[in-house]
């Protein structure tokens, strides 16, 4: 959730200093970017966080399968975040751990620890459009959402279930993205993404993500406890439930190293 700091400061300065004046002359693209920058700025300074994530995968017939993953994140100043995912369920992948160093300027770096083989494998981070653990979430949907991973266009203000939102389109910069565009509904009060529509490479509506049950931590950071992704083309859906959110627990950079992958429990 970071952004090249020089660029961010510059953009923020423009937005803050000239906000009243440019409101009239700002283009839809500038306004979209300003909203994304503001949303990002409001989440700065979380330092580190951890949570339990329960994934419920449903096929068209409603049959469910469950995954349990513990996630840990570390904020990195001037670059993308580092994150760890430790798989507890299904039992055959228990102990499998992935480490991601996301970057704003260069491609992300990713490693996977396979406990049965005692093997740390560096994996390609180019595969953004692939499904995460067989779910309806692609890797790019659950990865660090950095400002400069998209370009933006403000569309309109809209009431979503009675809440005033900004509606904007964003276009993935990475040509390996599985999407041509996303339409995002951002709550005006707290700058939280309430709903996102994903359009596939043919431009057809593919999925809708709805976020709900937001809680605030450390009087600043808002996190959704529930994310619901529905695939309109396959009829499948995936729910993510987050619990036990903790912030500033003292995680260190050395906990997010290749060597520490083997001893994550």
């Amino acid at each position, binding site marked *: 959730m970071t952004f090249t700091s020089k660029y961010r400061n510059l953009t923020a300065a423009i937005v803050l200093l000239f906000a009243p004046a440019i409101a009239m002359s700002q283009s839809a693209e500038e306004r979209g970017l300003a909203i994304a920058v503001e949303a990002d700025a409001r989440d700065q300074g979380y330092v580190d966080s951890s949570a339990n994530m329960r994934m419920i995968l449903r096929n068209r017939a409603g049959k469910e399968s469950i995954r349990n993953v513990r996630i840990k994140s570390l904020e990195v100043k001037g670059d993308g975040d580092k994150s760890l995912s430790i798989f507890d369920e299904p*039992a055959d992948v228990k102990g499998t751990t992935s480490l991601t160093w996301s970057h704003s300027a260069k491609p992300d770096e990713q490693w996977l620890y396979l406990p049965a083989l005692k093997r740390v494998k560096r994996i*390609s981070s*180019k*595969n953004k*459009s*692939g*499904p995460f653990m*067989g779910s309806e979430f692609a890797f790019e949907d659950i990865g660090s959402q950095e400002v400069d991973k998209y370009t933006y266009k403000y569309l309109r203000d809209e009431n979503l279930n009675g809440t005033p939102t900004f509606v904007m389109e964003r276009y993935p910069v990475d040509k390996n993205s599985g999407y041509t565009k996303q339409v995002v509904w951002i709550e005006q009060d707290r700058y939280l993404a309430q709903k996102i529509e994903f359009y596939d490479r043919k431009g057809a509506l593919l999925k809708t993500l709805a976020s709900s049950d937001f809680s605030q931590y450390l009087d600043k950071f808002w996190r959704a406890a529930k994310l619901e992704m529905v695939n309109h*083309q396959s009829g499948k859906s995936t729910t993510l439930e987050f619990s036990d959110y903790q912030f500033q627990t003292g995680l260190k950079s050395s906990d997010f*190293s290749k060597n520490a992958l083997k001893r994550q429990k």
Partner: protein
Amino acid sequence: MYRLFLTGLIAVASTSAFALDWRGNISYELTYFPESSVGTDNWNFNSSFGADVELSHDLADNVFLTFHPFARWDQQDDERTRAGARELLLTTVGDTWEFNAGLGTVFWGVTESRNPVDIINQTDAIEDLTGDEKLGQVMLNLKWFTDSIGEFEAFLLPRFEERTFIGTNGRPFPGINIDTDLTTYESSEAEDNIDFALRWANSFDAWDIGLHYFDGTSRDPVLLPVVTETGAVLAPRYSLLRQVGIDAQGLYGDLAIKTETIHQSGDEIENHAESVTGIEYTLVGFLSPLQENDKLPEEWCTPDVRNPFKRLACNDRMDLGLVLEYLWDQRGTDSNQLFQNDLLAGLRFAFNDTATSDALFGIVQDLDNGATTLSIEASTRLFDSYRLKVFGQQFLNTSDDTVLNAFENESFLQVDLTYFY
């Protein structure tokens, strides 16, 4: 002394109040050999049960104990019916270092077909026909991590483990019995020779590079023919050697370039180099262009379609990996390992489905004599906590290969159902 140390570790572990983590499994495996063996026993089916558990116990902050016992019962091969431990390891970690003592498992390597750099642990050749399973190695291991100049580690390996071999009644039968009672060593200390190893590894943008040095007993025995009262057998001979090696992987988007190269020297062995070099290229969602470019009738790709062919053609989530590796040994046909001038070509399918299904089709061909091994390895998840695995190998055109020749009738298909907890 060694036993006392292990007993001490267990005693410490059992009195500690910290949390215990575990992962384990129980498996049943059925292997079918369609043809009759030249071995002493003429059976076609084998059943085997296995159990494994890996326990991890925090003794204090940054001090923990790993214990990994295993057991197997085998219907046909007495050598495979056994129990033991793959790990009993005490680990202490700091911010920039890690210390391990006890019985441990270490993996080095990047390539798919064979890992010549992976010299710390002995291969447990009877546990798993893929050759991935390792025996525990007694070790003292110190690692030091830096941000700028990579990671360094040193190993002291005070006790050698012999390779396991299929028993007289086991299959695939290598043509002649290997008698581990007749094992000999170049070292006058035999299995008590103290081996040591050093390794450095670092990352440079797209490249991960490791260098190592090993001085001690070879993990790969030379098999010497010996005539006994009961007939001819092969006796494993473990020579002393010094090995230097490099392993490297470069990742350029969906293309991975990999190499493992070693040089071995010693008084008893021929000084030589070995290497495995190749690529893996992944085609992400390789069938998705069919839909994107409207190559398929639209009604095929609606959720109601039941026809498996149409469903497969519309599966835009599947990845295909293309694997190509060249295996080389400077000693040529004098080598004590099989892959002296061989090529591996493989197709790896990742279905990215709810059951995390995968399949790997491989062909390895000896470029000198044409001996060919076809293999299939596929797996899928069943009932949330089970995994069903199919593994098969077919040996073809083996008549001119002195080692594979014996495997002419040893092609097999194995089905394995494992419950994980």
